[in-house]
C-alpha cells in the first residue's frame, strides 16, 4: 500500500520564513493528488519535503505507513520530475533512464528491458543515444518522465513539469500523464499553479494559500461547493463572481431572503442567465456592459453593477448580440449561489 500521510506538517526555513503550517491530509494508494495554489504558497516546499530534499520542521510524513522524516531521498523510493527536467547533461538518454536502476544494482538485462519498455511507452526509442542538449523541450520532458517510470517507484512527484512547454504540447502531455498514471496505478503528487491542469488531472485536489490548506477534495466537489472565498475565486475560469453585500445591500443587485448581516455572495459566470428586466428570480442583477470577450463557443460579458463600479462576469452561450455600453439584466437560481462570511472567508450555510 503506497499511500502518503501528512500529519501536522510544518516548515520553517533557515532565516525564519514560515512556509507551511499544520498541513494534514492523506493520499490513498494509487491516487493522483494535485497541489494547486498561487505562487509562493508553499507547493514546491511541500513536494520537496515528501521527496526528502527539504527537512521537515515539524509533523510527520509517511509513505506506505513508514515514516520517512529521517530518510535520505535515495531511501524513500520515489521518483520526481522537475520543472527544468534536471536531466544528467553528460549522459545519453539511455543512461539517464538507466542511472537509477544501476544505482539499485538491477541486473543488466532487466535494465535493458525496462528502459526499452519506457522508451516505447513514451515514444522516445529513436532518441536513446542522444545527449539531453540534442533534444527539444518536449523530448526532454518525455525523457524526464521516462527516468521516473523505469524505476517503478512507490510515489511519483511532479513539480510543474509542463510549465516550460508551449500550450498545445502542454495539453497533449497532460492527457498522456493522466493516462500513464492510470495504467501504472502509482500514487502521484503533482504541483501546478494552473487551475485547469489541476482540475483535469486530479482525483484529489489540494488548494493551498499562504502556507495553509484551504480545501481538499475531488475537483468537482471543490467547484460545486467551495469551502472558502479563496477556493471559490481560485477554482474555475473565468473566476466566480464574489460580490460583497453590506447590511444595506448594493444597487443593481436583488436577492430574495437576503441575510441581514454582511455577506459575500458568490455566483459563477456560467450560472447567470440573461433575462428581461423585472423577471422574478432568487438573484437578479442589472449591469452595464464594459467589455465583451468572445471565445467561440461562448461569450463573456464584463459589466459594472448599477451605481457602484463592481465588476461582474456573465457567460452566455454562443455569440452575443449585446453591445458595449448596453444595460442588461441577468438572473441565477438559488442552488447556484454561494455565501461566505466576509470576516472569516468561510462558507456560510444560508438557506
Amino acid at each position, binding site marked *: 500500500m503506497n499511500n502518503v500521510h501528512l500529519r501536522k506538517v510544518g516548515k520553517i526555513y533557515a532565516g525564519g520564513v514560515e512556509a507551511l503550517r499544520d498541513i494534514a491530509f492523506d493520499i490513498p494508494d494509487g491516487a493522483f493528488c494535485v497541489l494547486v495554489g498561487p505562487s509562493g504558497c508553499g507547493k514546491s516546499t511541500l513536494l520537496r519535503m515528501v*521527496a*526528502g*530534499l527539504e527537512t521537515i520542521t515539524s509533523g510527520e510524513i509517511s509513505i506506505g505507513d513508514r515514516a520517512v522524516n529521517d530518510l*535520505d*531521498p*535515495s531511501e*524513500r523510493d*520515489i*521518483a*520526481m520530475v*522537475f520543472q*527544468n527536467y*534536471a*536531466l*544528467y*547533461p*553528460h549522459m545519453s538518454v539511455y543512461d539517464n533512464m538507466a*542511472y*537509477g536502476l544501476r*544505482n*539499485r544494482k538491477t541486473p543488466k538485462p532487466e535494465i535493458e528491458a525496462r528502459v526499452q519498455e519506457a522508451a516505447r511507452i513514451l515514444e522516445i526509442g529513436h532518441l536513446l543515444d542522444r*545527449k539531453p542538449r540534442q533534444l527539444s523541450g518536449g523530448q526532454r520532458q518525455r525523457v524526464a518522465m521516462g*527516468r521516473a517510470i523505469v*524505476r517503478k517507484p512507490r510515489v511519483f512527484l511532479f513539480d510543474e513539469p509542463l510549465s516550460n512547454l508551449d500550450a498545445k504540447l502542454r495539453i497533449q502531455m497532460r492527457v498522456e500523464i493522466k493516462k500513464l498514471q492510470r495504467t501504472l496505478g502509482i500514487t502521484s503528487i503533482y504541483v501546478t499553479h494552473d487551475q485547469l491542469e489541476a482540475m483535469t488531472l486530479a482525483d484529489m485536489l489540494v488548494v493551498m494559500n499562504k502556507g495553509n490548506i484551504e480545501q481538499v477534495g475531488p475537483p468537482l466537489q471543490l467547484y460545486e461547493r467551495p469551502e472558502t472565498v479563496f477556493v471559490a475565486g481560485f477554482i474555475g475560469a473565468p473566476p466566480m463572481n464574489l460580490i460583497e453585500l453590506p447590511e444595506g445591500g448594493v444597487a443593481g443587485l436583488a436577492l430574495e431572503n437576503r441575510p441581514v448581516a454582511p455577506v459575500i455572495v458568490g455566483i459563477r459566470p456560467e450560472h447567470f442567465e440573461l433575462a428581461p428586466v423585472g423577471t422574478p428570480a432568487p438573484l437578479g442583477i442589472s449591469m452595464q456592459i464594459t467589455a465583451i470577450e468572445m471565445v467561440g463557443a461562448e461569450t463573456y460579458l464584463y459589466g459594472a453593477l448599477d451605481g457602484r463600479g463592481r465588476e461582474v462576469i456573465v457567460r452566455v452561450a454562443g455569440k452575443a448580440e449585446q453591445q458595449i455600453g448596453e444595460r442588461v439584466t441577468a438572473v441565477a437560481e438559488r442552488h447556484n449561489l454561494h455565501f461566505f462570511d466576509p470576516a472569516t472567508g468561510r462558507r456560510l450555510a444560508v438557506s
Partner: protein
Amino acid sequence: MEKRVTFNGRLLPYMLLAPQLLITLVFFYWPAGQAVWQSFLIEDAFGLSTQFVWFENYQILLSKPDYYRTLAITLTFSALVAFLSLSLALLLAVQADKHIKFASGYKTMLIWPYAVAPAIAGVLWLFMFQPSLGLVSHAIRALGVDWNPVLNPDHAFTLVVMAATWKKIAYNFLFFLAGLQAIPKSVIEASAIDGASPMRRFWTITFPLLSPTTFFLLVVNVVYVFFETFGIIDATTGGGPAKATQTLVYKVYHDGKLGADLGGSAAQSVILMLIVIGLTAIQFRYVEKKVQY
C-alpha cells in the same frame, strides 16, 4: 543586431594596439628570438669569441644524463603538485559549496595564499621547516623523524612540493567553487532521488560535470609547476641538495647565470618554450572538444 565600434581613421586602431604590441615584442618576442639565436652559438671559455654551431648545444644537452634527471624531477614534481593541489582544492571547494554559512570567511582564508609572492611563500616555508629553528621541523622531530631538508634530498623535495601545492590551492579552489556552483542543484537532487549515495553522486554527476574545469586547471597547474615555481625553489632549496629539487627552469637559470653556459642554457629555454607551446595547443584543442558533454 551586432554592436560594433567603428573607427574613422585607419591609424587609430593600430595606435590603440601599439602599447600592448610593443610590450609583447620587447618582453616576449625579442628575448625569445635572442634565446633561439643564442642556442645556436657557443662562446669560448673566456667570452672572447662566439661561434655559430647549429644544433651542437642541443646535442650536448641531450647527451647528458644530468638533463634527463632534471626532466624526471620536473615531471614528478609537476605530477605531484598538480595532483595534490587539484585534489585538495576540490575537496575544499566541495566543503565550501556545502556549508554556505561560514563560506565567505572560509573562502577569504583559502584565497590568501594566492596573494603571496612565490619567493615570499618559499621563505615562509623555509622558516617553518628550517631544521634547527623551524616550528614545524620541531614538531616533525618530536614525532621521531630526523627532518632535514637542507641535507636530505627527499625531505627537500617534499618541502618544495608542499610549498608549491599550498601556493596553487587557492587558485584551483576558486575555479572549482565556480564550477560547482554552475552545476544546477536540481541535477544533484535528481541523482539523490535516483538512489545514488552522496559518494556516488559526486563521482557519477559532480565530477564528470566538472571535467572542463579540471582539465583547464590541470594544464594551468602543469605550466605553473614548470615555470612559476622558480621563486619557491630558489628561496627554499636553491635547487639542492645535490640538485634534488632542480627543475628544468631552475636549471636554465643555474647553467646560464651561475655556470655561464649561455648556449646550453638558451637551448634549454627553447625546449621549454616548445613545451609551453605544446601544452597551450593541447588546451585549446581539447578544452573545446573532448571534455565537453
